[in-house]
């Protein structure tokens, strides 16, 4: 690709005419109308399926609105030769984006930090002692980015790990909330994320009621944080049920 881009002239993506996207200032005090017509506390419909990639040990596909993600799990397999001996297993995570994932080509976000966030979100849920000396690789590809990418990746990765038969304490479900003015919006889309004053994401193991990861960024008041956390935890437990039923369906359905 590098060779081509130097040979070809610079290009730009044609934008929609006459529409300057700016955050409307009056929104700070009024109610935010969600672009996809959802209620503020309503998540996008989740579509989850295991076994998307045949050549992997386990895999899952997740589609939340316009956010579409595939995660493959490989291993447990031999660790890299340079790795020191370890009596617990290793987890290796990598997230990448397709070039067409974002509306404008090649504007994918930095994936190094997403990979490390994914690693930290999953680490606590995996029984690493069950595969000493070896590595489990979790690779995610974002086919289309439509907002709340990291929570969707984490949820999908956890399902793929379960599909691969990796020992887990529990599956992890992840949900984020955006704060725009006085509105709390669960499972935000890209447009909402770009206008947000603050964001809160919780990754938890619903049946153990344990949080593996929580990030809070931006401007928050204490009661707002409480409200947002409660929203996330409720949504996580519901998402956990959907994940469970997805796995049950795969196990009871016809085996290939």
């Amino acid at each position, binding site marked *: *690709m590098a060779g*081509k*881009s130097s040979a*070809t*002239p*610079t*290009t*730009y*993506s*044609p*934008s*929609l*005419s*006459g*529409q300057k996207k700016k955050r409307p200032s009056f929104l700070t005090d009024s109610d935010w109308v969600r672009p996809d017509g959802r209620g503020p506390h309503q998540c996008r419909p989740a579509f989850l399926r295991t076994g*998307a*990639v*045949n*050549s*992997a*040990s386990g*895999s899952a596909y997740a589609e939340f609105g*316009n956010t579409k993600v*595939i*995660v*493959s799990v*490989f291993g447990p*397999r031999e660790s890299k030769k340079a790795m020191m001996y370890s009596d617990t297993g290793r987890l290796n995570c*990598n997230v*990448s984006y*397709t*070039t*067409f*994932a*974002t*509306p404008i*080509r090649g504007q994918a976000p930095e994936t190094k930090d997403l990979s490390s966030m994914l690693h930290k979100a999953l680490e606590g849920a995996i029984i690493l002692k069950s595969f000493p000396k070896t590595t489990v*690789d979790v*690779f*995610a*590809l974002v*086919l*289309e980015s439509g907002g709340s990418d990291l929570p969707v990746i984490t949820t999908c990765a956890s399902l793929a790990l379960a599909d691969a038969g990796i020992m887990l304490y529990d599956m992890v479900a992840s949900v984020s909330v955006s704060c725009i003015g006085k509105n709390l919006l669960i499972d935000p889309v890209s447009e909402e994320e770009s206008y947000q004053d603050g964001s809160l994401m919780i990754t938890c193991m619903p049946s153990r009621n344990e949080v593996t990861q929580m990030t809070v960024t931006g401007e928050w008041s204490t009661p707002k944080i409480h409200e947002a956390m409660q929203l996330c935890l409720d949504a996580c437990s519901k998402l956990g049920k959907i994940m469970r039923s997805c796995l049950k369906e795969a196990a009871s359905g016809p085996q290939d």
Partner: protein
Amino acid sequence: MASMGGPNDLSSEMELDAFRRLFPICFHERHLLESIRPDGRALGRARDTTLMLGAVASANGSALAKIGCTTMLAAIKLEVMTPTAEAPDEGCIAIDFHMPPICSPLVRPGRPAELAPVISKQLSDTILRQGIISGMINLKDLCLVSGKAAWMAYLDIYCLDADGALFDAALLSAVAAFSHLQIPVVSFNDDGRIVLISDDNSGAMKEKEPVNKEKIKLKLNNLPFSLTCILHKNYILADPTSEEESIMETFLTVVLDSSFQLVSLNKPGGPGLAHTSSIQECITLTRQRVKEVQKILQEAISDMEVD
């Protein structure tokens, strides 16, 4: 079956899976003797193939192609460029083939698959071949205003699941994505840049003359289709799986266009040598396959139009 000698003697004493892993060549040759393959196919048959157009909402044209388990996702994004001085009335197409680590246990992040640039080049050669009659796309159709603006079509193909015959699946997804491609309605704005005109603000934009009146489809001539075969001893196996590819290493890829003209023939070395007769047989198999695939593409296009 002690007659075959060697490790076959163990075949009755060993579990099937273990035999398959320990003596893969024997395992496959025993099948070939009976003119069948481990997945139940006849030697010359390709796997079930499905196509879905419009799989990527944010792209101008896209398609998902599945041949057996091999899955390819192709998407085309159109951007605007200033044409070069040598070809002021021509657009441009950039083709890239990606093998992300999700697709196969052999690909690791940071170490891109060796195969990906090879397939990328093969695809570019096949799709961008220019000729008076044979070209698939006329680059002049991508021109907006001569010397000022033309379309740059970025075609990116992602392998989501690698299970053999990657080039065939990638080419099929690329051709299908071009069949699905719609060129949007655009006009110049005051700064001389190209802007999109959406349906709802077309009234307000009436004073500006759109460059093209309505969404158009690209005119495609002579679509290329391919079939990869394995040559192993006297056998010819069409549309190999990755397991077959890893065991028997002589491949021959034939590309024919929709009127069965030969576009390319590629035998990238390998331990086996090909007789003229086996090359001819591969071409015959490809002809049959092209008919099959054309039908699948037609069905996918008409499914799209119904929706």
